[in-house]
């Protein structure tokens, strides 16, 4: 029943889209006021999709296995929370979630853009509806979440156990809010371009959407990476896996866009660049969905998927790109650019430097992600590209990037001297000395480490000082840049000081190394509703004789029959102690990994700080 309502509601939503397009085209021709029907219609469309989405959730809660999606991804013994989160833990449901966010965002946009020119609003709505229709067709045609199966199965196939996790339950919605937010930026910039409204006012207005998407995207990536850290049990938080990379690429584009929008807002420059970035951001978000869902990517995270769907998204994606390029070429007015020049030392220059490096990082990630697919197609040679590629290409370029990040915000628009030279130099010398001291002490490779650590410290100290200098207008920028320096510092020291032990142990065995003794005391069993849990008890003793009990867990799920490892993590402000235990088939030995990872929590905290900066800037803007 719920599925039926859901399905028809979805169809009605699609029909509403056509009606909205009809009215807005009519309205656009005689645009003086927004047609009164448009706001209720967009609201109606949102409600239809919402009902459809709720219908799917209800089917999941009731374990209605006559629904194919529910049958494939749920099980009656699953806890309620994961029944609900299972709704978007699969392709069909996550697409419906995309639609839900798409329709709600355009409704909010129409409400919030009341002071903007009518033509611009209508056109944005039109572009957005094109995207929405594409997703409606995609959902209804290739991946309807409401397919009926008969005879009705007694039991579902269950949700992949590694997805049964709180962080991963909210990761997709948050990430999608970020992804879909970029669709508004895309529609809005195309529309502003068409009606010649790319201006300071537009920048001010669209900045809110840019910041909102950016905040959600950052949070979404953070959640995904926290999940990978404790659930995959590899002891890292970023693996440069294609599926991770596709979420990072729109993030780079969006971060660049935030900086550019500032220039546009204050100085009416970089107009075409802003439009290109807006298009790129959304295109990258869409390709992200395409690459993850199509099965083209050869990723360790790969879930089952269907190439036909990929083809649809690909065609849709290319039509959108062509449409936007067409609009860009035909409506872009050359004279908008270069109306003002600026000096070599100025805020504009430093933002341009930021842009260039961001674009470079973006292309590195793009090439690393796409090249294996490309090579497979042309030569059927199968390859993979590992972390060294990214590290080698990104780390050295962080150095000038960070310098610009530290000094840039101090510069003035148009033309600027270097302000307060003295303390900039003093701080620089201080950072270099400190870094050389640390590097010498640690006896690690000298050149790259000391230079890198110097510049990170430099950014760290300068942004730290700025907190105490009263200049509240840039507080949001300051906290973000400070967060970024803290983020890099944590990663660097985390990498340098991580120690790891990998061994195979039986119950009663003791592992001895120079630094630790690990004693495998016992195994304990527990029965839960939809899995059986095996908990190991390990006593880790360090050189000082301090003992610590670690209790990693194995879960054997009933449906699907699958084993997952739950890492045991002890967190404090200095370091994480991390242990996982893995089963090896038919063997008495268990596969043990024990790690001490310094400053792990600061990686998460610093990303939260970075996000907070965006949030503050968003809230402050609303006050004005």
């Amino acid at each position: 029943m719920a599925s039926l309502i859901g399905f028809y509601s979805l169809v009605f939503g699609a029909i509403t889209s056509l009606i909205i397009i009809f009215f807005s085209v009519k309205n656009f021709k005689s645009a003086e006021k927004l047609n009164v029907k448009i706001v209720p219609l967009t609201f109606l469309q949102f409600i239809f999709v919402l009902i459809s989405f709720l219908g799917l959730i209800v089917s999941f809660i009731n374990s209605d296995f006559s629904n194919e999606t529910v049958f494939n991804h749920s099980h009656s013994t699953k806890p309620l929370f994961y029944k609900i989160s299972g709704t978007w833990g699969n392709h069909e449901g996550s697409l419906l979630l995309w639609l839900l966010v798409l329709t709600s965002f355009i409704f909010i946009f129409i409400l919030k853009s009341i002071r903007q020119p009518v033509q611009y609003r209508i056109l944005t709505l039109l572009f957005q509806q094109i995207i929405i229709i594409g997703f409606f067709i995609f959902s209804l045609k290739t991946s309807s979440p409401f397919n009926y199966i008969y005879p009705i199965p007694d039991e579902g196939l269950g949700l992949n156990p590694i997805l049964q996790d709180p962080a991963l339950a909210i990761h997709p919605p948050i990430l999608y809010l970020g992804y879909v937010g970029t669709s508004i930026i895309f529609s809005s910039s195309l529309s502003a371009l068409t009606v010649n409204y790319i201006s300071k006012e537009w920048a001010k207005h669209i900045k809110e959407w840019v910041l909102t998407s950016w905040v959600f995207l950052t949070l979404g990536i953070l959640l995904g990476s926290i999940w990978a850290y404790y659930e995959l049990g590899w002891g890292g938080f970023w693996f440069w896996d294609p599926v991770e990379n596709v979420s990072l690429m729109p993030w780079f584009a969006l971060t660049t866009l935030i900086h550019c929008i500032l220039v546009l807002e204050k100085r009416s420059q970089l107009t075409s660049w802003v439009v290109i970035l807006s298009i790129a951001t959304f295109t990258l978000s869409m390709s992200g969905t395409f690459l993850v869902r199509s099965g083209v990517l050869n990723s360790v995270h790969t879930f089952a998927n269907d190439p036909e769907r990929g083809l649809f998204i690909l065609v849709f994606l290319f039509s959108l790109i062509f449409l936007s390029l067409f609009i860009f070429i035909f409506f872009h007015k050359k004279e908008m650019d270069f109306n003002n020049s600026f000096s070599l030392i100025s805020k504009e220059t430093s933002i341009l430097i930021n842009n260039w490096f961001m674009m470079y990082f973006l292309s590195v990630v793009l090439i690393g992600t796409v090249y294996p697919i490309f090579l497979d197609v042309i030569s059927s040679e199968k390859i993979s590209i590992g972390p060294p590629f990214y590290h080698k290409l990104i780390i050295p370029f962080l150095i000038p990037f960070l310098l610009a990040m530290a000094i840039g915000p101090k510069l003035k628009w148009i033309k600027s001297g270097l302000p307060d030279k003295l303390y900039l130099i003093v701080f620089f010398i201080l950072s270099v000395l400190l870094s050389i001291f640390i590097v010498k002490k640690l006896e690690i490779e000298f050149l790259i480490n000391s230079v890198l650590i110097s510049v990170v410290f430099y950014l760290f100290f300068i942004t730290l000082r700025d907190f105490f200098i009263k200049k509240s207008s840039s507080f949001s920028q300051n906290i973000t840049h400070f967060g970024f320096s803290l983020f890099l510092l944590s990663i660097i020291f985390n990498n340098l000081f991580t120690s790891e032990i990998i061994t195979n142990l039986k119950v009663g065995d003791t592992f001895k190394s120079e630094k630790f003794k690990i004693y495998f005391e016992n195994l304990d069993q527990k029965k839960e509703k939809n899995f059986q849990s095996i908990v190991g008890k390990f006593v880790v003793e360090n050189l000082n004789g301090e003992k610590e009990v670690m209790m990693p867990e194995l879960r054997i799920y009933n449906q699907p029959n699958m084993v997952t490892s739950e890492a045991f993590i002890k967190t404090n402000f200095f370091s994480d102690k991390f242990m996982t235990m893995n089963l090896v088939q038919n063997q008495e030995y268990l596969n043990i990994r024990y790690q001490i990872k310094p400053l792990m929590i600061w990686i998460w905290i610093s990303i939260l700080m970075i996000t907070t900066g965006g949030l503050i800037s968003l809230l402050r803007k609303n006050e004005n």
Partner: protein
Amino acid sequence: MYGKKVKLRFLFVSLILITLILSIFLILKSLEENVVYFQSPTKIKETSEIQRKKMRIGGMVKENSISINSNEIVFVITDFKNEINVTYSGIVPNLFEEGKGVVAEGYLKDRNFFIASKILAKHDENYMPPEVKAALGKE
């Protein structure tokens, strides 16, 4: 003579071009160095020279081939034509099982022995890495 502005813009554009070319060159070069090729046991048997580069080998874990002691896990990867012995000390994913697909990353010792530094995890019991599928031939 050209004006100062034109000169400056020319300088700017050429600077951009140079950095663009440089960065593309850099990316391609390190791409070449860091690519990990995927091989099947048969392919390794057939090639005349043993590659010293890091590579991935994929196939099935042979039945009854897993053995383990406190330091390492030893098993055999097969593509049903040829086999290769793998020695590994590290964490195996939970879906690592006899008769299931596996991808090992590491270095060749000789034509029959492979030292793995990573065994790749998969998240789905029914999932098989595309490379393994290709190596086993299409069913």
